């Protein structure tokens, strides 16, 4: 088996209960881009109980071929039947690249398949390119994102990677796109020793600001207590929690438990949006290590901009409703 015999850019089309995950479309989009350099076919791999309209949807989003394996044993995601199905397909079709979403399913399945195939896998890629030798170059973060690595799998096939959702943008949907749909007949062994008992979706509840991944923080720049309603709504819209600076606690708008700062709590969320906060050192020391700091302030010289990643000079009364509007749009 020569490396050059391996051709095809495969994406694992993750689905749950007959609904394709958005990450599948994102992967297709990137695969099409990689095709520009490698010239290889973009193929979506679908494992399901019943494929239904999913194959067409995949063609509509950029797949040139869809290979389907249907079996009742594939209804719920189970590691071993899925990994074995992929193993068989790879053995038959020999793709050079195989991409998965770095989702809980992808991160469970990809390494298992990779170990079966004894090839290389790079997790959580933020970028993918084909280099001058036709090899996939995978860029991924490590050390919590502080260091980026470029990784290759030069001598083994397929070159496997998982990609974080929302890394790439999906292509616009094309109606009734043409392409090949291949139904693979494959005997899938039942897996009675592994059972999915139930899946319970999340219900949002109160979170300690120190545990929150996203925070919207309000300060003395918010002049009117009624304005806090829109800021609370923003917090909800971004899936985060509300926090405040000391002045807002002093005037008893909120309790000390959500105060950020030297005399409050220290937080390190992935995202913090500062609204009407000047950026006094007493506040900054409580949140300046946050991964992404967005600050909104009327004053272009506010100290908060010195520690922010994104700055908006403006009136929160205009910016906050616009943000809420935009986020609501994105969610649909």
């Amino acid at each position, binding site marked *: 088996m020569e490396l050059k015999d391996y051709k095809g850019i495969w994406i694992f089309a993750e689905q749950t209960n007959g609904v394709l995950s958005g990450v599948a479309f994102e992967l297709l989009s990137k695969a099409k881009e990689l095709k520009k350099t490698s010239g290889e076919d973009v193929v979506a791999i679908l494992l399901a109980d019943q494929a239904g309209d999913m194959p067409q949807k995949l063609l509509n989003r950029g797949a040139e071929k869809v290979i389907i394996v249907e079996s009742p044993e594939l209804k719920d995601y189970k*590691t*071993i039947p899925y990994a074995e199905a992929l193993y068989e397909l790879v053995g038959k079709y020999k793709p050079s690249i195989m991409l998965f979403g770095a*989702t*809980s399913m992808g*991160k*469970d399945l990809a*390494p*298992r398949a*990779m*170990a079966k195939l*004894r*090839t*290389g*896998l*790079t*997790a959580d890629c933020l970028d993918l390119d084909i280099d001058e030798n036709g090899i996939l170059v995978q860029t991924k*973060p*490590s*050390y*919590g*994102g*502080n*260091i*980026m*690595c*470029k*990784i290759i*799998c*030069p001598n*083994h096939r397929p070159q496997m990677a998982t990609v*974080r*959702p*929302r890394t790439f943008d999906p292509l616009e949907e094309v109606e009734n796109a043409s392409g090949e749909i291949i139904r693979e007949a494959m005997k899938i062994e039942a897996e009675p*020793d*592994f059972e*999915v*008992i*139930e*899946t*319970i979706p*999340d219900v949002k509840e109160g979170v300690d600001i120190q545990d929150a991944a*996203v925070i919207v923080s309000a300060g003395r720049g918010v002049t009117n207590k009624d304005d806090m309603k829109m800021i609370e709504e923003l917090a909800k819209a971004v*899936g985060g929690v509300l926090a405040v600076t000391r002045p807002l606690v002093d005037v008893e708008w909120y309790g000390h438990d959500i105060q950020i700062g030297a005399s409050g709590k220290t937080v390190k969320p992935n*995202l913090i949006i500062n609204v009407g906060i000047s950026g006094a050192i007493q506040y900054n020391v409580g949140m300046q290590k946050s991964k*992404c700091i*967005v600050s909104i302030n009327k004053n272009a010289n506010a100290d908060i*901009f*010195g520690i*922010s*990643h*994104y*700055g*908006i000079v*403006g009136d929160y009364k*205009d*910016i906050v409703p616009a943000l809420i*509007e*935009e*986020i609501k749009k*994105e969610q649909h």
Partner: protein
Amino acid sequence: MKIVVCIKQVPDTVDVKIDPVTKNLDRTNIVGVINPFDKNAIEEAVRLKEKHGGEITVVSMGPPQTNESLREALALGCDNAILLSARELGGADTLATGYTLSRAIEKIGAVDIVLFGSHAVDADTGQTGPIVAENLGYRQITFVSKVEVEDGYVFASRTLENGVQKVKAKLPVVLTATKELNKPRYATPIKIMKAAKKEITVWNHLDLECDMDRIGLKGSPTAVTEIFEPKRDNKINMLKGSPEEIAKALVNKLLADKLL
């Protein structure tokens, strides 16, 4: 019950930098600690032992200083510690590491449960657990937030993106632990003193009867060609325009960075 916990020693901080001269990771002042999620794995192993009886072996592949972490694992309640170390094992990627670990687990023999942390905070791959599961032919349950064992079955809760999944799997299994699984205990001074006196077994590739093609650099399909620090927006990105334009630009950026 025979339990194995696989741990990795990682730097005590992820705030690492690249040495501008060597272009490699600047390892000065880096202290090695047990990977935080591995602590959850150890804690769960100890709880399972407290409930069901049995023996816990903690295993780690790494250079000699990994012993410090193995000792800490002993002080936390593991019974035996094994270090997998040899020059030939070095330079391994996840496939080679997973192979080496599974050789060790096979050598220990008759292991019912293998516990890993969900991922290591340095390499951030989360692959080693499933690779070992495949090599051993064990069922795997990743991202567990709750574990019960009853009548030869594991009942576990898995953390998904937007919910919790309850699964049941027959032993033997490989589990990867999330932070939500438990609150790791502290090692007590008495346990520390006892652990300090315990001997740590060292196995190399010969003890493990490894296939030389599958270990170390040779056994690693992937290679890192370059490391670099991401372009930090130390320069603030000021968003301009109408409120609607600003909102659109910001939301797009935040979605792309997976922050929303």
